[in-house]
Structures are given as structure tokens and as C-alpha cells.
């Protein structure tokens, strides 16, 4: 119980919100709006949050995901518009994202630069480059490419299944495979991990490549949801993702946390806006409540670690 205290309390808070909605706002549970909400708001963010979890467990951070999300989405959409099939545009977007991640990883793991500054710089650079080259023009991929060319229902379920499948797969890897444990080891103590025969720089580099590739995937999952791809997508995405990861119990000082908690944290944070809307409260309170939840989560952490120390 105490070991998974955070995961359980976040899940309990989420259950409370869901029960509250069931009692006071039945409209929230209409299947189609709920499905659209989960596909558009939760699934792509979950995919990026998976990568962010690994990066943060590795005691690094990546705040450039919002910008590479926008670039990958636009580039994938441009390929689709040129008439290339989704089978080519999707891997291209993933590869481009991985390349962005590899650049961050090379600067962080190779040169030993602080990840927050490196990704701050790449975030500004990529965002401004996209603005300059595209001038905010939407990319029209047409309805034939929407939902990967499937029906809306099938497309939505595909996106949800891929996101959840990825998350469960990664959760298993992190818990049961050596590769996953390496990430925890490097995040807990890089020098000790090195002495144990792990290559911390390689692990860090690969974590950045992974979050890049997942960002590319998430970008396409989000891009195919409408016939027009927004080039300003993903502004503030990095902080939303980090918030979900932190609320889910991943320690920002590395080495602790798991993906199930992140799923609960993301669902809790994503449920605020619809909950406010359906309960008739002004939706402008969303960010304030999000901030309060983040602070509550870290305060609980601080109090618990102080109690343990005493």
C-alpha cells in the first residue's frame, strides 16, 4: 500500500471525479463525445507522456516536445498532401521526431550539457523555424486521409488502442526487462550504474531518441483527426505532459515512478476541463485547478519524505 501510495491516491481522486460526474452530469458519459474527447485530448498526450516518463526517470527533462510535435505533424501532413500514403508519412514523422530527439540526446549525453537548457534552446529554435517557413498556414490533408483513411469510429479506436498498447508495453519493459531497469539505475545514480557495467550516456541518449520518436507518432495520431493540420499545435504541450508525469508520481530527481501512475495522472488532469464544463462551472478555472493539483501532489511527496526522514 505505502509503496504505491501515490498511484492509488491519484486513481482515487480520478474515481471521485468520475463518480461525481456520474451523479451530477450524466451527459459526460454519452459514448461519442467521450470517445472524441479521449482520442483528441488524452491519447496523443499519453504517447508523449510515456517518453517523458522515461526521460524523467533517467533524471533528465525534455521541454522541446511541443515544438517537435508541431513540426512532425506539419511534415507528415505535407507528405500526405503530396499524395504519399499514410504508410510512408507515419514512419517519416516518427523518424523525424527521432532525429530531433537524437540531436537533444547528443548534446545532453554526448557533451554533458544540462537537458533543461538544451531542450529550451531547441524548443525555441524549432518553433520559430516552423513559424518562419510556414507562416502559420494550415495544411489541408483532405477528408480522404482523415483517421488514417478509416471510418471515424475505427480511426478513433485505432488511436486509443495504439496509445494504450504502447503504454502497457512500455510499462512491462520498465518493470521486467533489463533495458527498463537500466533507465532506473541511471536515474538513481549514474556513476554507480556505470560501475555496474551500464553505459549511462547511451541509455540517456536512447531515452531522448525514444521520446522524439513517440512525439513523431503522437503528432500523426493528432494530425489525422481533422482535415486541416494546425501548425501552431503543441504550444504548452511540454508542460502539460510534465505535469501529468509528475502528478502520476514520477520523481523529478530521477529513478522513481511508473507508467500506471502517469496514466492516472494524465486522466485526472484531462478530466478537469470537461468536468468543469459539464458541471456548469466556468472552464477558465482549468489552469488554476491544474496548478493546484500539481502543487498538492508535490506537497504530499514532500510531507511523506519528511515523515520518513524523522
Amino acid at each position: 500500500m505505502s509503496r504505491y501510495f501515490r498511484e492509488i491516491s491519484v486513481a482515487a481522486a480520478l474515481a471521485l471525479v468520475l463518480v461525481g460526474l456520474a451523479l451530477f452530469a450524466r451527459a459526460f458519459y454519452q459514448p461519442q463525445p467521450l470517445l472524441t474527447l479521449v482520442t483528441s485530448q488524452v491519447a496523443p498526450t499519453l504517447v508523449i507522456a510515456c517518453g517523458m516518463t522515461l526521460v524523467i526517470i533517467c533524471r533528465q527533462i525534455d521541454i522541446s516536445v511541443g515544438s517537435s510535435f508541431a513540426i512532425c505533424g506539419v511534415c507528415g501532413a505535407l507528405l500526405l498532401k503530396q499524395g504519399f500514403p499514410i504508410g510512408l508519412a507515419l514512419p517519416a514523422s516518427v523518424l523525424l521526431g527521432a532525429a530531433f530527439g537524437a540531436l537533444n540526446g547528443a548534446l545532453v549525453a554526448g557533451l554533458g550539457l544540462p537537458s533543461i537548457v538544451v531542450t529550451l534552446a531547441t524548443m525555441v529554435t524549432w518553433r520559430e523555424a516552423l513559424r518562419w517557413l510556414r507562416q502559420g498556414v494550415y495544411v489541408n490533408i483532405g477528408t480522404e486521409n482523415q483517421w488514417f483513411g478509416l471510418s471515424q469510429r475505427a480511426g478513433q479506436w485505432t488511436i486509443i488502442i495504439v496509445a494504450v498498447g504502447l503504454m502497457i508495453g512500455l510499462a512491462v519493459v520498465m518493470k521486467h526487462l533489463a533495458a527498463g531497469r537500466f533507465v532506473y539505475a541511471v536515474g538513481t545514480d549514474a556513476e554507480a550504474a556505470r560501475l555496474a557495467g551500464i553505459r549511462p550516456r547511451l541509455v540517456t541518449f536512447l531515452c531522448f531518441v525514444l521520446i522524439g520518436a513517440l512525439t513523431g507518432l503522437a503528432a500523426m495520431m493528432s494530425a489525422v483527426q481533422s482535415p486541416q493540420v494546425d501548425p501552431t499545435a503543441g504550444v504548452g504541450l511540454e508542460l502539460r505532459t510534465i505535469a501529468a508525469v509528475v502528478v502520476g508520481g514520477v520523481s523529478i530527481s530521477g529513478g522513481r515512478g511508473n507508467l500506471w501512475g502517469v496514466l492516472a495522472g494524465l486522466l485526472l488532469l484531462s478530466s478537469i476541463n470537461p468536468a468543469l464544463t459539464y458541471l456548469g462551472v466556468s472552464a477558465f478555472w482549468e489552469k488554476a485547478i491544474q496548478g493546484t493539483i500539481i502543487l498538492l501532489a508535490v506537497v504530499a511527496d514532500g510531507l511523506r519524505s519528511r515523515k520518513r526522514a524523522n
Partner: protein
Amino acid sequence: MNSDKHGLKKLLFRHETLLLLVLVGEWLFFYFRGTTTNFSGVTVGFGTAGAQIDILRHSCEIGLLALVMTPVILTGGIDLSVGSLMGLSAVVFGKLWRDAGVPIPAAITATLALGALAGGLNATLITALRLPPLIVTLGTFSLFRGLAEALTRGADTFTGFPASFQAIGQNNWFGLPAQLLVFVLVAAAIWLLVHRTTLGRSFRAIGYASEGARYAGLPVGRRLATVYILAGLGASLAGLIFTARLNQAGANTGTGYELFAITAVVLGGTSIFGGSGSVHGTLLGWAAVAVLSDSLPYVDWPREVGGMLTGLLLIVALSAGVLPKFLSAWRARRHSSRSVNPQPTPSP
């Protein structure tokens, strides 16, 4: 510390000196490419006093944030909430003045008090519970912006402030923007604090080794509280100046400014891990960012390129800082691996 022969070389390769060269280069480039004479023989463009004053006027707010961010980063912390606090300050100021009928001087005082209070909230969470500043200020980043949006329902803006208040952001005093005077005063105060007081020394000591500073008898908690409250004050001052400059206060005031402020500080040579850095470095970093982000229209380049170049400059500055160490470590590794497996010397 060094012999004189090394002293000159050290001065030449100091981060600040290189940054100054970059800044001068930038300025000269824009001066020669961005200044022209029109038909009636009047000089227009970057080289005119008007353009220089405009650039200064636009960048004072980010400069203020960068100044108060410097002590925070020196202690090894970070404050992501300053941009959001600018927004909250602007909205609270507007609400006090328009809806509550509070006179301007009292509203300014109350807004600054709010800034100190908000900084105090960050400080309490960071010091009393020993939480990581990155996460605490990420939470308040969301909280302050959210409160600003909730207070204005996302759409309400405040305008029509009295001319005496707008003067702070729009008038010239002695040929210079009025807010530059505020900026210079704050810069002088922060420089004295960081470089000429024991308080400033203790910031660096905490950033270098927080536990060590504690064992040396420094009141680490109180010192950290000082830097975060100072950051809160600076952010609300920047919010007020922004409001005066545009004669408008909205919930989105200062969005993304925290990132530009951090860029200026890090570009100025302050280590993001704390312990080393300088206020004059921050001023140079700020000037480099300000010139790059505001001057490109004068040479007919899109403004976005300025943002791009700022990001690239940050990466180059960081890499240049670690490259000598990286190369020597690499050489040492190669050397040691050679001595472990000595090659047989070929006989002549």
C-alpha cells in the same frame, strides 16, 4: 590567482568578453545593413536613436525578469512562474483600479505586495518542504496564469489607464525610455546585492553546495526565500511596466517571457546548476537577445529568424563552454587507453 601572463588570456577567453564581441558584431551588422537614407536625405532604420529607444523600450520587461532570475539560478534553482505572475499582476492591478476604484499608487503597492506574496508561496514550498524548484514553479506557473484567466473569464481586458500611469511605459525622460530608469535602478541594486554583499556570496555558496552551505552555518532557507520573493517582486514590476507600455492588461500578459529570461541568464554565462555567474553577464545576454529578437525587421528579415538565432546562439554558447573540457577529457581517455595497452615501439 593567476600569473599576469595567464590573466590576459583568461580575460580574453572569458564568457563575458566573447559575448560582448558577439553583441558588438550583432550591433554593427544591423547598423550597416539596417540603416538607410530615404529620398529627402533623412536617416531611417536601425541606426537612428528612435529605433534604439524602441528596442530598449520593448525589452525592459524581459530584462527585469532576467535580472531577478539571476540570483535564483545562482542558488541552483529556477523560477518558471515569473511570466504567469506578470499576467496575474497585470490583471489584479487592472481589477483594483477599474473595478474596486483603488487609486493608482495604492494599486501599484498592492500589486507589488502580491508579487512578493506569490514569490513567498514558491519560497515556502521550496524551502519548508525541500521540494525541487522546477516542479514547484511549474505548479505555480499553471496556478498564477489560471487565476488570471479565472479573474478575467479569459476575455476581459483593462484599458484606459490615466496618462500619468501610462507615462511609465511610454514617455521619454532625458531622451531615454522612462522604464529604462527603473531598469537601471533595479540592475544596479541586483548587481550590488550579488557582487558586493555577503548575501550575494551566500547565493553562490548555496548553488555550489547547498548542504555545505548549511553546515557552514548559512541560513539556507531564508536566503532562498529572499531570491524567490525578489523574483516575485520583479515579475509584478515587469507586469506593471508592460501594462503601462501597452495601456492594456490582459490574462495573457507575459506568456513565454520566462523562457526568454532564462535564455538571457544562461547566455550570460550563469551556470544552470548554480554556483557561478554574474549580473553583468546577464545584462550582456539580455542585450544580445533583445537586439536579435527586435532588429531583424530593419534588415527585411522575418522576426521569427531572430527567435531561431537566439535558440541557436544559446546552444553554441553552451557547447563552446564545455568543448575544451570535453576535448581534454577525450584526449585523456585516448591517452590512458594507450598507456594501458602499450604499443611496441617499432625498431628502426
